[in-house]
């Protein structure tokens, strides 16, 4: 029983990490209509940037900010230089998926000669254990949970109360109509890539901090968990991604306690398959992954 209470604690950390990453991924998809398979690799790139800063003696929290900035700029440039021109050219959704997969393979392999094959880990004292009932978490884990909660509230405030947020939702719902109403959709989309890129970069550093060590191959594993959370909640739905992250985080950690931690991604995949069979539109969406009528 204690094992499961402890797993619940890890689940809280896990869902925080997944939530930051999945909200960024799902907003990218929901607003720009682009399934960016290079997302996991951008995360890993930011994690490595924070690693080198960390090794130079800079604290991991400053590294997190740097990772977020790097992720924002990287994603923005990726869209401006590559994705946006392809979309303007009229490349289909499927074509874009292939382009982003090619980009993902290129980033991973450009990293290999720079960072090497060996797994890395941050030099960071996780702080003392803080006990809440049966759950024991380190100071760093509590900070990660706090960061995730603040970010989720910030995303909610952005989407619900600001002009930019409303413009984003309008662009997501109908880009042509939004443009005709005078919304500068191009600038909105630039802002979306910056914001989601920052979430992506920050999530990379947090995910690397949360695991004992990380290597380039982790990019694909990150991507699977994120996809599972985003699709479970309803692709393109930020609140759905939050809900999906909570469920995936809990279920994967509980299954790791009950079964084997090697199969965390397999469990996430199992959930993904179940969602695709039973409710392809996800928990919180009408359309989601469902094919067009007919």
């Amino acid at each position, binding site marked *: 029983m204690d094992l499961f209470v402890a797993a619940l604690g890890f689940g809280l950390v896990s869902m925080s990490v997944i939530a930051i990453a999945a909200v960024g991924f799902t907003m990218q998809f929901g607003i720009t209509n682009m*399934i960016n*398979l290079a997302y996991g690799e951008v995360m890993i790139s930011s994690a490595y940037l924070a690693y080198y800063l960390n090794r130079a003696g800079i604290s991991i929290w400053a590294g997190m900010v740097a990772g977020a900035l790097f992720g924002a700029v990287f994603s923005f440039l990726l869209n401006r230089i*590559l994705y946006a*021109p*392809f979309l303007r*050219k009229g*490349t289909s*959704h*499927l*074509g*874009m*998926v*292939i*382009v982003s*997969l*090619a*980009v993902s*393979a*290129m980033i*991973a*392999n*450009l990293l*290999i*000669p*720079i960072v*090497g*094959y060996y797994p890395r880990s941050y030099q960071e004292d996780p702080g003392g254990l803080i006990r809440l009932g049966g759950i024991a978490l380190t100071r760093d884990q509590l900070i990660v949970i706090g960061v995730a909660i603040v970010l989720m509230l910030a995303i909610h405030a952005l989407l619900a109360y600001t002009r930019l947020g409303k413009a984003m939702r309008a662009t997501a719902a109908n880009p042509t109509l939004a443009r005709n109403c005078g919304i500068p959709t191009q600038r909105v989309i630039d802002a979306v890539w910056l914001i989601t890129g920052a979430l992506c970069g920050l999530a990379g550093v947090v995910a690397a901090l949360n695991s004992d060590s990380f290597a380039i191959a982790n990019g*694909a*594993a990150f991507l*699977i968990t994120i*996809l599972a959370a985003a*699709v479970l909640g309803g*692709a393109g739905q930020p609140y759905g991604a939050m809900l999906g992250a909570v469920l995936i985080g809990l279920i994967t950690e509980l299954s790791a306690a009950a079964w*084997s931690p*090697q*199969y965390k*991604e*397999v469990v996430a*995949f199992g959930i*993904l*398959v179940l969602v*695709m*069979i039973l409710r*392809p539109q996800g928990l919180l969406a009408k359309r989601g*992954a*469902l*094919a*067009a009528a*007919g």
Partner: protein
Amino acid sequence: MNTYYAANLLVYAGIDIIACLALNLQFGVSGIVNFSFIVFQAVGAYAAAVLSMPPDTANGGFQHYIGGYSLTFPIPWIGGAVAGGLLAIPVGFVVLRKLRSDYQAIALLVLSVIANTVITNADKFLGGAAGIALVPPPLSERIDPNTESYQYLYVGITAVCVVLTLFLVNRIVNSPYGRSLRAMRERELAATAIGKNPVELKMTIFIVGGVIAGLSGAILVGFIQVWAPSVWLYPETIVLFAAIIVGGRGSNIGAILGALLVPVGFEEVTRFLNNDPAIANLGPPGLIPALQWVAIGLLIIGFLWFRPDGVHPEARRVFEGAPALED
């Protein structure tokens, strides 16, 4: 250029051509973005391996796998093809029925990553991360595999399989059925409106492609005699996609050209580069293979941008009875 090198080159070319023809049928002709193509090849290879190998207690029991039936050629190859087809049924059932096409692609990509993780971690099932070794080459009980004539024989059998595959896919592509597939690829809603069932068409092609992929895996494992998760990581599928995009989506000749240019061509260029010590030791370790992947990514992006139809574009098919359109 000795016989072994030539045989190696030809067999690999044959396997890549078979795989590219199958992927072209799925991706090029029917528009199914099968990002888990390599899994079907892997299943064929594993099936052919365990069908042709003795039980795992042989050779001192140093490896663990299920089965081990010591069957003679051609049963393991047929088994490999059947295994590829059988795997396509549940996968297609989950992925191809309800999902939007870009979700189909990512679901298949995720499947490819997960299948590899599961096989790597399940070390009693198919050898785990270490994989399976000492797979007996076909007909090795009659002909010594370490002779030149055996190498020629293997090239010959591979060539027969290439011709059979090419015949099969050509028949499908040029038939009225192929026309339905292209109609579905171009506009699924319109194809549905004229009475085509896209789910049925996709399922059929998914299974046919799975069978051919399984066969290509069986040929490969018979030749290299080992099989492990590290040879069927998901990026291997990207190479085949690059081949189809470079060759020309939807064109069988294009798929053959793509197979010769991308997987075979890159393999040879890397071998050539690695033979030159000045280049092989350049930069940090792993630089050349990493740059090879970067080049494949650039190739995909470059072709999609500058020449989306590939070097040998699909022929434009015109119905001769149709009234001429005024431009």
